[in-house]
């Protein structure tokens, strides 16, 4: 059985049987039948459960007269993303705020959870940033199709029809490259942040790691901002007026 975090071990103890059955039904043979749930999957489940609980809690205490501290934080984050998407996409950007806020919260909590002893950052594993990038990729194309209909595909043909056979593969590759660049940027920064903190903690365990933990918080916030902002820029490219 592989080494696992306490939360992963708990999930595996409770759900190993049903998960094994589900994987076999999909034609996937689990490598460790006693522990089919990996650390990064368990951490994502925890983050999703935490966010659902957080939003339910804020919703139940929502007050216009006496907003609590938690409500202020959530509304501050939401209005920050809303203002930013308004500035990048322009008018009618409100429809995309819910997705961008959910994506931002998920990435931020995934980045920060690794700082708590006993937990790991799922974004330090390539599959998680890749999953987020794929979701963003499908979302902005779906919104582009919804807004422009079939005419959305004209965008991939380039400015002249005779250039279409050349431009089509170029556009497909450049859009797929966005997925890779979003993935690599988030993964590399979170992985490097974890490694730097770990190395300095091993060398000088007192005092110095605090500075690197501070740096890690800064990197987590910045990478969340960049991921959400680039998704907004790609959305603008798909649904914007100049499209």
């Amino acid at each position, binding site marked *: 059985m592989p080494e696992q975090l306490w939360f992963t071990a708990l999930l595996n103890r409770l759900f190993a049987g049903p998960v094994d059955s589900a994987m076999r039904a999909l034609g996937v043979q689990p490598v460790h039948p006693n522990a089919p749930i990996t650390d990064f999957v368990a951490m994502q489940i925890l983050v999703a459960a935490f966010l659902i609980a957080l939003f339910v809690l804020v919703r139940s205490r929502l007050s216009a007269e006496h907003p609590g501290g938690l409500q202020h934080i959530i509304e501050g984050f939401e209005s920050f993303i809303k203002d930013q998407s308004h500035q990048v996409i322009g008018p009618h950007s409100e429809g995309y705020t819910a997705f961008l806020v959910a994506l931002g919260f998920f990435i931020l909590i995934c980045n920060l959870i690794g700082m708590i002893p006993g937990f790991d950052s799922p974004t330090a594993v390539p599959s998680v940033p890749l999953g987020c990038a794929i979701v963003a990729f499908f979302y902005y194309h779906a919104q582009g199709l919804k807004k422009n209909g079939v005419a959305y595909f004209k965008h991939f043909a380039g400015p002249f029809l005779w250039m279409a056979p050349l431009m089509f*593969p170029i556009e497909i590759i450049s859009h797929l*490259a966005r997925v890779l660049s979003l993935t690599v*940027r988030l993964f590399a920064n979170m992985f490097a942040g974890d490694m730097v903190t770990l190395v300095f903690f091993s060398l000088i365990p007192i005092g110095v790691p605090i500075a690197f933990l501070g740096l890690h918080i800064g990197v987590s916030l910045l990478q969340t901002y960049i991921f959400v902002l680039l998704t907004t820029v790609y959305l603008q490219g798909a649904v914007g007026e100049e499209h």
Partner: protein
Amino acid sequence: MPDPDRQPDQPDDAEKRSLWIQVARYSQLALVLPAATFVGWLIGIGLDRWLHTKWLYLAGLIVGIAAGFVELIRTVMSSESKQP
């Protein structure tokens, strides 16, 4: 609750935000060319295995490099056209 009369951005906020948007846009320039080249090469290798050919990886690589430059130029042009 946010003030409903509040404008989405005050001028100072908008200026600072715009600077950060430029920073984030330019930050992707470093990755876009290698990412597109890698994706092109990967697609070429996949096509070579599927079609049992030996030259499509090179075509994929060239198209990938072209796609990287197209995206690079597009990002720079779009950032410059949005500057005040």
